[in-house]
């Protein structure tokens, strides 16, 4: 086994962070819990599935926000009793949860199977096509949504906002983080990493590469669906625009600024994004210097650019570098065509 101390330190840091996060609602205003922390956690959950697929599988997926949305739409359709749109099945909220997760997982399995023989840029493009098609499906099929979406969606009574919902998001995030990390050390997770490095070799060792990729994508979809449920409970509504290309790209940006080869980066990136979009517009004098609502995205873009220039490994990469500066191995020169893959590989070398 590896030397115990870094693992131990990491575990201790995580435990400390969780304790702080559990205590947070009694220290900070409800607004912060509800608008910043809960949103951070659910977006982090979805972004973590991008990290999972990219870091272990070398698959950069743009369909994770679609699956996040599928879970939300399905929950809305099943749980709502009456309304102008949707199926209005009026099921018990927990039955609706099971239904939403089942549909999301099945959709992920199908989409994952279709994409399982592609890699690299083609994978990115194919999953982008999924996202576009998904948007139009929900925008145009009025039986399940229609352009203005589904409103007044109730959450299970147990999960009242802000605190219970926050704890739900926190619990799911911790489970996903630990689960993804643990999976990386199992036969399934190691095989996925092997397929990232050399799928042909994995096949000759007796592994079914397309099936493996499909299952990984299915798991990613399931976890993104959990994030999507928190989102619809938190929002009380969902419409197709909220899963369009804009939000899809924002989720990718979150994963990238956090550091696409670090699971903690997903939540770090989500926090930075949510904090920026919550507080940046309220800064005093911000409109005087010309940053109006319409230019807000430019500011976010500039900040993303800055982070990427300072650290191609994202925020978690900066933290990691500071932590291990004295013994850091020299990184091989970048510059190949598949920069992402090279970056993922590099991160893999210096991770743990």
């Amino acid at each position, binding site marked *: 086994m*590896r030397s115990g101390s870094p693992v131990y330190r990491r575990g201790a840091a995580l435990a400390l962070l969780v304790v702080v996060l559990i205590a947070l609602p009694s220290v900070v205003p409800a607004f912060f819990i509800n608008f910043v922390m809960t949103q951070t956690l659910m977006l982090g959950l979805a972004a973590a599935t991008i990290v999972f697929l990219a870091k272990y599988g070398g698959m950069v997926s743009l369909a994770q926000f679609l699956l996040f949305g599928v879970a939300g739409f399905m929950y809305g359709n099943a749980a709502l009793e009456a309304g102008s749109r949707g199926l209005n099945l009026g099921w018990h909220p927990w039955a609706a949860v099971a239904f939403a997760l089942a549909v999301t997982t099945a959709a992920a399995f199908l989409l994952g199977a279709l994409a399982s023989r592609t890699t690299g840029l083609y994978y990115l493009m194919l999953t982008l096509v999924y996202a576009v098609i998904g948007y139009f499906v929900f925008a145009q099929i009025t039986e399940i949504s229609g352009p203005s979406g589904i409103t007044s969606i109730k959450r299970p009574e147990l999960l009242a906002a802000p605190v219970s919902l926050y704890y739900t998001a926190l619990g799911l995030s911790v489970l996903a983080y630990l689960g993804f990390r643990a999976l990386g050390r*199992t*036969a399934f997770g190691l*095989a996925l*990493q092997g397929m990232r*490095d050399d799928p042909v*070799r994995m096949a000759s060792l007796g592994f079914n590469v397309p099936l*493996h990729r499909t299952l990984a994508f299915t798991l990613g979809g399931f976890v993104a669906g959990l994030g999507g449920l928190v989102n619809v409970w938190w929002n009380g509504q969902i419409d197709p625009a909220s899963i369009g290309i804009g939000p899809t790209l924002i989720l990718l940006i979150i994963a990238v600024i956090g550091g696409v080869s670090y699971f903690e980066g997903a939540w770090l990136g989500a926090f930075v994004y949510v904090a920026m979009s919550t507080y940046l517009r309220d800064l005093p004098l911000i409109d005087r210097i010309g940053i109006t609502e319409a230019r807000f995205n430019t500011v976010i873009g500039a900040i993303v650019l800055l982070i990427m220039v300072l650290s191609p490994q994202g925020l978690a990469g900066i933290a990691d570098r500071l932590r291990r500066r004295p013994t850091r191995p020299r990184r091989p020169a970048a510059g190949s065509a598949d920069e992402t893959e090279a970056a993922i*590989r590099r991160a*893999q070398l210096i991770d743990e």
Partner: protein
Amino acid sequence: MTSKRRPLPAAEPGTAGLVPVVQVRAVKVAFGGLLALRGIDLDVEQGERLAILGPNGAGKTTLFNVIAGDITPTSGTVAVKGVDCTRLPSRRRPRLGVARTYQKARTFEGLSVTDNVYLALAGHYRRQRVPWRSAVDRRLRDEAGRVVASVWLGDHRDTPAGALAHGQKRQLELGMAIATDPDVLMLDEPASGLSRGEREHLVELLDALAESVTVLLIEHDMDVAFRVARRVVVMADGEIVAAGAPEQVRADPKVHEIYLGSEGRS
């Protein structure tokens, strides 16, 4: 696709020793207009140590790819232990006891040396998709550790394969291939790029394999090839041009012509 299929003997218990372990029949492989293999026939008996020689581009690696399932031949058939596996995907071949190494070492760069070997074992013991760690995994991991030590990488168990030197990668590949106790071991130029000492290691390791293991060896280094092999096949331009015992082949004027000729040209 027109394949002249000849009937192959069925695999029956008790006939194992009688049927050649590897049977290649009239195999042709075309890459576009280029015929890389022009009709290869080859029988390899159980426990044989066979060296395949020939200049670059002769089709040796392509023949390996056909036997291992990485390439489906344009025509002809391949059988392992009497089972026709011409169209069996490569991921099914380990179950037939086939393991191989690649000419250009193919290791999993981001994974540790032990994990590389562990994956070979996980594939063999049908643990491919197990999403947890159990006592079985601990045993496989211990086994992987022993294999790693047996290919002299004991000091590099936790080193990512991508950080290994060239020769060490070849040792790791060899470890991944022998880890599962294959019945048919195919090694594509295992000695290339190795130092003299590492070559000695390699020969030692191959000598230590059980008698029953069938070894197919592509090798440029005559010294290694002739020390390991009891039979030699020489390929050129997609055909087998000479075959026999090492001394016989060494003395064959055709072989001299091929080697001297190709060296003269290049």
